[in-house]
């Protein structure tokens, strides 16, 4: 008897293994349905999964229409935000997995506007290669990921761009000991070994700038900017170049004692406007993202900070602030499908533009004064349309 028993059991074990394979295939079959059920505003997937969070927004929004991503997000109760996850001071992944930085805080700001909860964000770290695909497949709702606004991306790639939150530009960095200073120009690097990371527009930009200045340079490229910096520290490169924000971060953290690195020219050799990016033709969601950014800028202009926003809402300094904070009857947030106090929550939980900027970018040495990122009243480019 025991002789017959073994093969049978073994065959059943094989069968069970096959079942489990089927079960995990079932996962691939069933999981999307779950996603579909929770993502669709009007659930129509039969009895498969109960859709839960549709009631809370039903009374706020009246013009429900198919394919409106804003409805989907509000129903989901969480913003899917694409970040880099490895961009110093913009979106760093900390050892506990949390995201910190300028971009990460703008994700939180949009979440605060949408749900009144800055923590209702699911961060998806994305590589440069997959970021646009992630938006197109709906994996993320919005990109806060150091993405330069360019014509081709706006048209051919099929993205839409929100207001620029950070005006970046490519600059050069060299050692003061080699005779460079903050006032140096591109023409001063003639004959130098210039290093940058491969496959990016930075390579092309610096070559163009050298040609325009009529000088010869020796261009060397590396796989990533860590290697570039490493080679700069080891004297294998005379000059390194990338976006100014990254250079400042490197200088703040990796400059050896006894050396002084300088960044030049004062006017960058390229324009890199960075801001929120989302899929095409989603005006209602785009409005929410754009006006969240504008709200932080207007609050900065009016001196409304996370510390005093409660007082400001109680005693608004002017009519515009009252509207923006939802303290006046002619507020516009309800028309956008948001709660009247949406931007009040943004300022309270995340802060105004200057607070977000100073919190993350000042520690790595990026200051607003004199840069394009100063407010328009201080000669910068940070400007918001009026809230009325």
């Amino acid at each position: 008897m025991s002789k017959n028993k073994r093969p049978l059991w073994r065959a059943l074990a094989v069968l069970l293994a096959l079942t489990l394979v089927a079960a995990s295939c079932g996962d691939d079959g069933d999981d999307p349905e779950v996603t579909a059920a929770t993502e669709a505003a009007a659930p129509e997937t039969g009895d498969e999964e109960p859709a839960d969070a549709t009631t809370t927004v039903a009374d706020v929004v009246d013009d429900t229409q198919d394919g409106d991503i804003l409805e989907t997000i509000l129903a989901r109760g969480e913003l899917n935000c694409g970040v880099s996850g490895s961009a110093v001071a913009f979106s760093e992944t900390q050892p506990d997995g949390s995201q910190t930085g300028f971009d990460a805080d703008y994700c939180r700001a949009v979440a605060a506007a949408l749900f009144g909860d800055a923590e209702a964000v699911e961060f998806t770290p994305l590589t440069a290669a997959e970021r646009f695909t992630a938006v197109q497949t709906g994996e993320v709702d919005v990109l806060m990921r150091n993405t330069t606004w360019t014509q081709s991306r706006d048209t051919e790639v099929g993205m839409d761009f929100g207001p620029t939150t950070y005006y970046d530009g490519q600059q050069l960095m060299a050692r003061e000991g080699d005779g460079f200073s903050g006032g140096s120009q591109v023409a001063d690097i003639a004959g130098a070994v210039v290093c940058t990371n491969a496959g990016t527009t930075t390579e092309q930009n610096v070559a163009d700038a050298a040609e325009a200045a009529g000088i010869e340079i020796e261009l060397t490229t590396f796989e990533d900017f860590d290697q570039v910096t490493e080679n700069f520290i080891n004297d294998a490169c005379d000059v390194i170049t990338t976006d100014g924000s990254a250079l400042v971060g490197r200088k703040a953290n990796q400059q050896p004692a006894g050396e002084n690195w300088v960044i030049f020219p004062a006017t960058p050799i390229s324009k890199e406007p960075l801001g929120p990016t989302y899929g095409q033709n989603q005006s209602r969601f785009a409005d929410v993202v754009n006006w969240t950014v504008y709200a932080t800028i207007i609050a900065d202009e009016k001196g409304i900070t996370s510390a005093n926003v409660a007082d400001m809402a109680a005693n608004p300094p002017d009519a515009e602030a009252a509207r923006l904070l939802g303290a006046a009857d002619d507020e516009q947030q309800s028309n956008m499908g948001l709660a009247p106090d949406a931007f009040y929550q943004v300022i309270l939980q995340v802060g105004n533009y200057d607070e977000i900027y100073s919190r993350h970018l000042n520690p790595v040495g990026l200051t607003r004064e004199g840069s394009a990122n100063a407010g328009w009243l201080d000669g910068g480019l940070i400007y918001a349309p009026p809230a009325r």
Partner: protein
Amino acid sequence: MTSTMGDPAATPAATADLWAQEREPAQKPEEPSLSAGEWLGRNLFSSPVNSLLTVVFTLLVLLAGRGLLNFTFSEERVWRAVKTNMRFLFTHAYPQEQYARVWFCVGAVAVLSGLSIGLLAKTGRGISMKKLSMNLMAAGGAIAVGILLREPSATVDSEGLVVHREPGTALDDSFAGWIDANSLALLGLLLAANVALAVWFRYQGVYLRGGPEPRTAHGVLVLASAAVLIVQQYGEGEIVRESFGSAMADRAWWWLAAALLGAAGGALWFGLGDARRRNTFVPAMYVFFGAGALMVLSAWVYPWGHYAFLEGEFISEPGSTVAMTTKLPWTVMLVLLVASFEAGRALRATPAGRRLRVPLNLLWVLAPFVLYWAVLRDPDLDWDHVLSTDIPMALFFAAFGGLAVWFLAHPRIGEVGRVIAVALVGVAVLNWVAAFFGWYPMLQKARISFLLLAVVALLAHNFAGDRTHRMRLVVAWVAIMAVFHWLVTLVNSPSTVDTPTDALFGGFATTLTVATFTLLLAFPMGVLLALARTSKLPIFRVLATAYIEVFRGVPLITLLFFFVLIFNLFLPGGMSLTDIAGATIGFALFSAAYLAENIRGGLQAVRRGQYEASDAVGFSTVQRTLFIVLPQALRVSIPPLVGQVIATFKETSLLAVAGMFDFLRIADKVISAQSEFLGVKREGLLFVSFIYWIFAYNMSKHSQRIEKRLGVGER
């Protein structure tokens, strides 16, 4: 530590198990015992060429070892980055307050491993005391050499920066400075002396005579060269370094470890005497447990330092021992492993132990699914749905299918059974067609259950027999339905464990998960593909060949990019595949093609006679394949299969390229972008390679044991 002579329980159990026929190793002639000097003379300094090769390669090994040690322990290394990110590297964003779940999973694997090794593994005689004591002494010696070889620490100022010497004040006037300045000349001189000695001994005929002079003379010269390599570092360069005395004092803990290991080895060696050291054996697991216990003990005693990131603050306490949340769980894990191993050993000879074998193997198959979906995700079950839909449906399929199987496995069912089974298959297939066109809305799992039932119905006549046999088949069906419906319900329930990213975890956990699920998917697929490719039916043969050739011809990274990034674009709106599921599918499809080829090799090694014999006793094709051909084919293909497993495990690092946060990506890209550790990359890469190596090396060792046990290559 008690010593045992093999395992008496293994022998009766082994005869019953087809998979584990143990052969007595042929008696090898006893080797004569050599003294250390004689051994050196015979193996390293037996001829002029051998002597020179020994000298040159010893120097190369010392140089490489010195380089690695100096790299690892240099003041410039920011190991704090790896230590602070330890949890991050292994599980990414898995929340700390839920971390008990991770430890539960590790504990479950520890208990399963302990039980399996204790209950099932053929441990053989174990490790001889001779080998053990030699290895202990070698480990102690290696540590001592390492301590001496490492360069002295640089002096660090109050801000943690390395102090440089003022220009022009080199240590040239000191002894070490002189050695450093002339090190190349000295080493060249010593090498030339070695050559001269080799030639001289050759013409004196010393090598032929086997005298002790060559090993003594060459040995002294090797030691002198090593001394140059060590002393040189104390006179080196621009950095102010500590003196020899304080360097050795700083490494007191390491001296202690070297002395303890050496003393333990020496005590065993000299305490036992030649005959007893040869003939006393320790089970290999006890040696492993001993090493584990030493490591856990060091976590409680040695100041490895406590580094963490808690509530937005970096914690850095270099002088303390590791955090309680690290050392306590590991201690528990070791205790669980030892306890379950002992329990397994105790049960081994008993009937209960023998009955446990099959369930234990089933548990191994079930564990990844249960641990992933039930423990790590902690599914939030919707009880209304469970009670109203899930449980009734499972009960229905269990009852209906049970009856069908009971009926179809009747010995006298004949052609009627076949017709019914084919009809069931037809209905199941139609069901999927209906799903494709969306005719009858139905839960996916109902369709899968029906398909499973159809397959079991087709197979049922192979298991026809008396009441007890049929009952067993019914019970197995009900068990399959219970497990299947339970798992699908878990899969469909949302997770209560909330992470800041869309993935449940990343890092090494992703590596392990993808590797495990890939193998679970790819093995059955590979077996089926191999069978199909060797099938007599042209349609199967052509399809399997096409599949294998296509997937072997496409680069793995292409498949990964497709399934992780692009596949979602082809899915209907709202549907999406998570990264980890996509990656697993890509890996499984790829590995299945390779595994199929390995198994096909095994199938071809099964002799014709085996087929003919099974035909002669009236086996059906399914019976012949399951019980005669596959066991033999799989046994032969173990070495290439394990090679494929190791390759798959290491290839998961390609996930980093596809943009997933696996082990390598975190070490390479993410840690180096934290402003606290900006640009710190080498430490992480070294650590990651070390962990990969540990796992791959253990898999390779384990496969060698299996091969030996199954006698692959001997029969």
